[in-house]
């Protein structure tokens, strides 16, 4: 690659100073600017700002172009193969930015931003104006360069390997992914921008980072760039960035970041990056929300709705911990699938473990979960129950709950023992109604059935005048003693 020399020697000092003064007069006296959240990023509620340094500049094209150093209080970096927060933090330290103020033929000014994201092993001197600037890229530079509007909208981007452009891209403006509510809630979101790749330009020849928009290409290769603020890593402040882990790096051991290798893209697959981001979250609250966001975007909206409803039902701290485990389990089960089957047989096992037999869950939340799962699993289905009888009980409970777990027995919450039948019938309770059913793991059910029935006998002996409401209340209490979820 040919490195072009800075052009300051082409103009005299008087003209230079005047060009800067003119540009500054047009630009205005303000040096520090707040970036609106919609254009920039929020880092845990912190506002992103940028500052222009008028005493650190370079002049090009005889004063037609002024290049100034710009710094941000924090900034995202595109993830291009980094596997740890430490690597991202190191990358962030080497980032440098420029403001380009250009006067066109008509004397009108325009301003752009150039952002440099060198690779980790890049020498710090690459940030010098003399080394990398509007006119050229240093032969030792490797990394990303992006051209953006002053309002922080990407116009073009280049991937550079040792001074050579290996890839050029531009944003697909028609289908940018909106930042999801959950990501916004995190105040720590990675930013996504969908870009389309064009053939490398200028490869092998002198490279100029020009602001011309790329030519229209037929069926461009489009995907997302995900940028991430390492200072906003959820593990920051609680163990340091080194705890950010990605056990399954893209391309098998991180090979995906190798540039210029015949068609391999140095940018990770969107899906992998999203999973990598989630896997790296340590904070359990943030992780659950990120996993739910992922599931919602992969066809698991019903499950997300269910969890949100559950969370809104007044769960305690320990329940939240268990819910986090459930979400994690479903996420791990379903990740990578775009048509999720939340209520598939494989998930029923997870659901059973969590909702029906989880001893760490409060009985209220256990019941609520079971009720919600059953409701969601059967929603929209035209259910026709068989007659309410002992022999049809399992079939009806299956219809009612949307599951037929292999290792669980259908349990009559109100025992069907003939000794109790006149008591329950007299209180308007049909013991074979599936709403009075529960799934109880076979081993535990068989082990506890005797004591369960004896508890009912003793309770009835002391409560012969109980109302239906009192009977149902006791049923809930008794089932909770055994850690079994009920629908009532």
């Amino acid at each position: 690659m040919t490195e072009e020399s800075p052009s300051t020697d082409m103009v005299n000092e008087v003209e230079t100073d005047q060009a800067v003064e003119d540009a500054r007069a047009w630009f205005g006296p303000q040096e520090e600017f707040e970036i609106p959240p919609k254009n920039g990023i929020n880092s845990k509620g912190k506002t992103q700002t940028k500052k222009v340094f008028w005493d650190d500049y370079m002049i090009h094209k005889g004063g037609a172009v002024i290049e100034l150093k710009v710094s941000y209080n924090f900034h995202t970096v595109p993830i291009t193969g980094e596997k740890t927060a430490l690597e991202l933090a190191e990358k962030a330290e080497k980032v440098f930015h420029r403001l380009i103020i250009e006067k066109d033929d008509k004397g009108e000014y325009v301003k752009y931003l150039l952002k440099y994201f060198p690779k980790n092993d890049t020498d710090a001197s690459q940030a010098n104006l003399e080394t990398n600037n509007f006119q050229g890229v240093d032969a030792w530079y490797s990394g990303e360069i992006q051209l953006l509007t002053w309002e922080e909208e990407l116009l073009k981007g280049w991937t550079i390997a040792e001074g050579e452009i290996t890839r050029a891209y531009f944003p697909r403006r028609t289908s940018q992914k909106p930042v999801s509510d959950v990501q916004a809630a995190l105040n720590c979101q990675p930013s996504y921008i969908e870009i389309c790749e064009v053939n490398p330009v200028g490869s092998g020849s002198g490279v100029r980072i020009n602001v011309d928009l790329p030519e229209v290409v037929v069926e461009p290769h489009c995907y997302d760039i995900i940028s991430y603020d390492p200072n906003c890593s959820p593990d920051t402040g609680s163990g340091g960035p080194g705890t950010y882990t990605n056990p399954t790096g893209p391309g098998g051991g991180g090979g995906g970041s190798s540039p210029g290798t015949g068609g391999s893209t140095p940018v990770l697959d969107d899906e992998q990056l999203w999973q990598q981001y989630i896997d790296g979250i340590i904070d359990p609250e943030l992780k659950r929300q990120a996993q739910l966001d992922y599931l919602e975007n992969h066809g698991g909206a019903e499950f997300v709705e269910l969890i949100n409803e559950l969370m809104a039902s007044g769960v305690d701290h320990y329940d939240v911990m268990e819910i986090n485990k459930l979400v994690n389990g479903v996420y791990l089960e379903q990740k990578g699938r775009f048509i999720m089957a939340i209520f598939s047989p494989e998930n029923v096992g997870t659901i059973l473990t969590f909702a029906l037999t989880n001893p760490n869950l409060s009985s209220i939340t256990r019941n609520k979960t079971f009720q919600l799962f059953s409701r969601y699993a059967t929603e929209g289905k035209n259910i026709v129950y068989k007659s309410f009888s002992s022999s049809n009980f399992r079939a009806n409970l299956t219809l009612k709950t949307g599951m037929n777990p292999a290792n669980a027995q259908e349990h009559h919450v109100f025992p069907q023992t003939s000794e109790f039948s006149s008591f329950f019938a007299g209180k308007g309770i049909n013991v074979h109604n599936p709403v009075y059913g529960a799934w109880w793991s076979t081993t535990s059910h068989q082990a506890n059935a005797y004591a369960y029935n004896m508890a009912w006998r003793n309770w009835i002996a002391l409560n012969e005048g109980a109302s239906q409401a009192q009977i149902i209340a006791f049923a809930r209490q008794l089932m909770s003693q055994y850690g079994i979820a009920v629908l009532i």
Partner: protein
Amino acid sequence: MKYNGFYKFDTRFVKSPITVKNDNLTFEQANMLSRGDYKSFQFPINFNVISGKKWLPVLNPPSVGLYILKKDIVENLEAHQIKGFASFEVLIVDQNGEVNNDYCGFSIIGKSGKIEFTKSQIIEKKTGEGYSKYYRGLFPNMDTWDHSDIFRPVDSLFVIMSEKAKKIFDKYEKTNLDFVTLNDVELMSIIVDSV
């Protein structure tokens, strides 16, 4: 100790004994029979065998607290001047339509005061996967006890028997019978606390 020599009488949940049922008998009516309140009934009371194969001395109860016994037991109880019970005539039809006349209904008419759970000890016991609180000891108020050998604490369907009454039952097959000394009766706290 005034509770020594008293037992809570119960039957076990086992499948082998014959189980009888009268579908027209309400829970309230069954309780009246079990307390010896016969005025609104016509005897015999009919029962049908619904399950089981073995004609044990005490059949599985058709309703909580309602017992069907072999007439022989009742005769034995009477012979030993056991107080606190009555019996009524039943007619049991088995699944082949054959009538068994060897049994009678058993009513408990002896009484004591209410159960005083404050006298019980609170313990923890394994229930399912976790632990639950239990009340240990079933102690009725004996100040108003009518000195029957077989009695019920007020407001309950529990049956308590004296040692003397128990010894009569001991002579019969006890496959499905359970006598627990009052000191050793354990009830889950949720049963007691909801009373």
